[in-house]
């Protein structure tokens, strides 16, 4: 028996190599563009090519796949290249506009079930087809993960929401709030991540531009830094956002709902077309200008959300649910329409610290 034991142990150990995978048997997928059509899914995978570029900035190569489902499309890729597509380091998934309008629950489900996938990957919605985003001319070769880096940067500056997958899923499933994703578009001078895509459940219903996106993030308390530009033309003034906090009080009666936002901004003057020292009077003027601008944008945002898209991306319903569950029990079932009738106001306070290194 004692002599058989090591043999048995050896046999057992040898049979356990089913999950052993070398790195060079995998294609490391940096990003993915997903479009869904009548004939199934069309994927364009951005694969990190470690033989090109440098170690920390590898080149990219592209793999177009097609299948009845995401899983089938990815498996088809392995059949073509001989390597398995490895989603463990995928940082960006771009969903085409039409695909997003049709609903993305299937994508969310796939990514949630696949153990390799980072739940922190970013999803974005493209203008037009997602595959167009990754098209590139020979003159502007793109490195892998560039788009993911751009999305992170946009999220940090408030140009677009930083919305990892797990947070979008949380908003998608929670009551009284709808999910938002960053928008990505291609123009003559490259790919840009700016703006927010608004979802009702899992379907795309609208978009916001950069300013309204920033305002939305301020109201949801998701903005910690960025640049706030007020005015226009020669009178444009830009402020660095040092801190931003938002408090919400939502309640009222079922037929008279109200939500009051208190947004506090801490700014630092960055660029101004006016000359002169930043004295108390000038500072007060700037503070009022900033507060007024943000408030106007907030009101525009509310019009878009309540009247145009009719989607509660602000999370007013969630606040009611959390603080006043009895009220939510009454208004929750019909919240889509109740939200449109809700009176939403904002009080914005802006405080300017100074002009950085300069007194002017």
């Amino acid at each position: 028996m004692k002599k058989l034991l090591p043999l048995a142990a050896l046999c057992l150990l040898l049979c356990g190599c089913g999950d052993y995978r070398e790195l060079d048997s995998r294609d490391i997928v940096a990003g993915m563009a997903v479009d869904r059509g009548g004939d199934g899914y069309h994927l364009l995978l951005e694969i990190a090519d470690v033989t090109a570029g440098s170690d920390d900035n590898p080149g990219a190569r592209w793999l177009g796949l097609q299948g009845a489902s995401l899983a089938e499309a990815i498996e088809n890729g392995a059949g073509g290249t001989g390597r398995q597509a490895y989603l463990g380091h995928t940082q960006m998934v771009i969903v085409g506009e039409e695909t997003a309008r049709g609903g993305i629950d299937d994508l969310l489900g796939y990514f949630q079930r696949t153990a390799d996938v980072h739940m922190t990957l970013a999803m974005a919605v493209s203008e037009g087809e997602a595959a167009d985003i990754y098209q590139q001319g020979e003159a502007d070769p793109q490195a892998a993960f560039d788009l993911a880096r751009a999305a992170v940067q946009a999220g940090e500056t408030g140009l677009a929401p930083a919305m990892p997958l797990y947070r979008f899923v949380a908003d998608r499933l929670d009551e009284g709030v709808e999910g938002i994703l960053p928008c990505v578009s291609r123009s003559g001078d490259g790919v840009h991540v700016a703006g927010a895509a608004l979802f009702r459940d899992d379907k795309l219903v609208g978009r916001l531009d950069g300013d309204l996106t920033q305002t939305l993030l301020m109201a949801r308390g998701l903005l910690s830094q960025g640049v706030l530009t007020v005015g226009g033309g020669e009178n444009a003034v830009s402020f660095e956002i040092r801190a931003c906090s938002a408090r919400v009080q939502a309640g009222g009666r079922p037929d008279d709902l109200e939500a009051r936002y208190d947004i506090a901004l801490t700014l630092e003057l960055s660029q101004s077309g006016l000359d002169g020292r930043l004295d108390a009077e000038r500072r007060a003027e700037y503070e009022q200008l900033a507060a007024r601008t943000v408030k106007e944008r907030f009101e525009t945002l509310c019009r878009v959300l309540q009247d145009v898209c009719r989607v509660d991306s602000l999370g007013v319903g969630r606040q009611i649910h959390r603080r006043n569950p009895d009220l939510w029990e009454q208004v929750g079932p019909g919240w889509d329409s109740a939200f449109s009738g809700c009176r939403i106001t904002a009080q914005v306070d802006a405080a300017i610290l100074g002009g950085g290194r300069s007194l002017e």
Partner: protein
Amino acid sequence: MSVFTDLSQNVARMQELFDRDKTMILRRVTPPGWPEGAVCLFFCDGMVNSTSINENIIRPLTLMQPPPKGADRLRYLEESVVQTNEARQSGDWDDLIYSMVYGDTLLFCAGCDKALVLNTKGFAMRGISEPDGETVLKGPREGFTEGILRNLSMLRRRLRVSELKQEYLTLGTVSKTVCALCYIDGVADKKVLAEVRSRLKKVDMDGVLDSNYVAEVIRDHKESPFKTIGTTERPDVVAAKLLEGRVALFVDGTPVVLTMPGILIESFQSSEDYYVGYQFAAVSRLLRMAGFFLAVSVVPIYIALMTFHAEMLPTPLLLSIASARQGVPFPSVLEALGLLTAFDLLREAGTRTPSAIGQTLSIVGGLVVGSAAVEARFASAPMVIIIAFSGITGLMIPKLKSAVIVIRLGLIALVSCAGLYGYLIGMAALLAHLASMQSFGVNMLASGPLSEMGSHEDSLARAPFARMKKRGRFLSRGDRP
């Protein structure tokens, strides 16, 4: 058979016993004025101090006065003639032969049925030097040598109390190796002492040429890669361990002394910890513990992350490693095993070769294994770095060298099947194995940072001496103060 009263019969017996052995020297001396008191001296050439024989035995014999009539001849010679520092009578041939081959001189006198055993030991020994495996930057540089008497004297110099006991015993039916069991009476644990004595009685082998012969017979958990008996070549270490309540066993012919019980934390302790400031000592000890952990873990964790859990690596690191692995034909596990084997071969070769060649060998080995293997794509640079790091950290704790090798291989086998879960299960099993081990009744994890009972004044870090008041920290149950 006992000694004959007839001198010629004793001479014949000795010549018979040492037939064809030219190292046995016979010297007859007839004291003047006492022809009936002829004396024969027997000693082994090369084992004795000739000057002592000449000055303390032969000269007094040639100048002696005959004993009074009726007096005991041998007693007279012992007490009034010979001038050696140690003399005793013995009538047992085995005892006499044993003493003679160990450097004593035998004095047979006509008409006596016993012989005198005179201490004239003077065999050549290596000089005292610092042991290679236990060097310190600060502190004493003495190390034990092969002679047990000198070793015991080095210990006695450090513990000048009568409570220090040094009990002699003989092990090995042919070698009859002299051993000494040392302990401090009143400090050493009685149960441990009794257990040690009991196990030593069971040592049954022809030759005991090194302390390891004894250690392997009397240790607990013979199949474990962790040793349950401490070893050292330093007298200051032995003295400190005796003061902690341990028992030491000296074996003639080897500088390595056994200390019992041997617990895990000792492997991370160094005598230098007590000769430098306690803060530096704490850092050093933590580094050693971290070194052991890294030595056994870094290779398995790297393999697991590369092959099962690549998603746990940061993306830039993964890309860097993937780039480095391009073109390497071997799976990561084989690559790791190959490099580990190469490292161990180099280490072993470096130990065996003369120092003049050893350095060249190290350089060549490093160049071959390191650079050329990477350039030839036999191995990837990250793997070489990992193996080198693991190998170097493994050398930080020489006492756990074999344990590191065995555990590392076991963990590599586990991770190659079940990734990080195999590693975690392996570490849990290792912890359970250590927790189940005892050394002469004391837990292996005693007084370590993982122990439940006992003080921690000298475990993870050494407390300042003013706070280290307890001794006998390894007493077994019932004897705890």
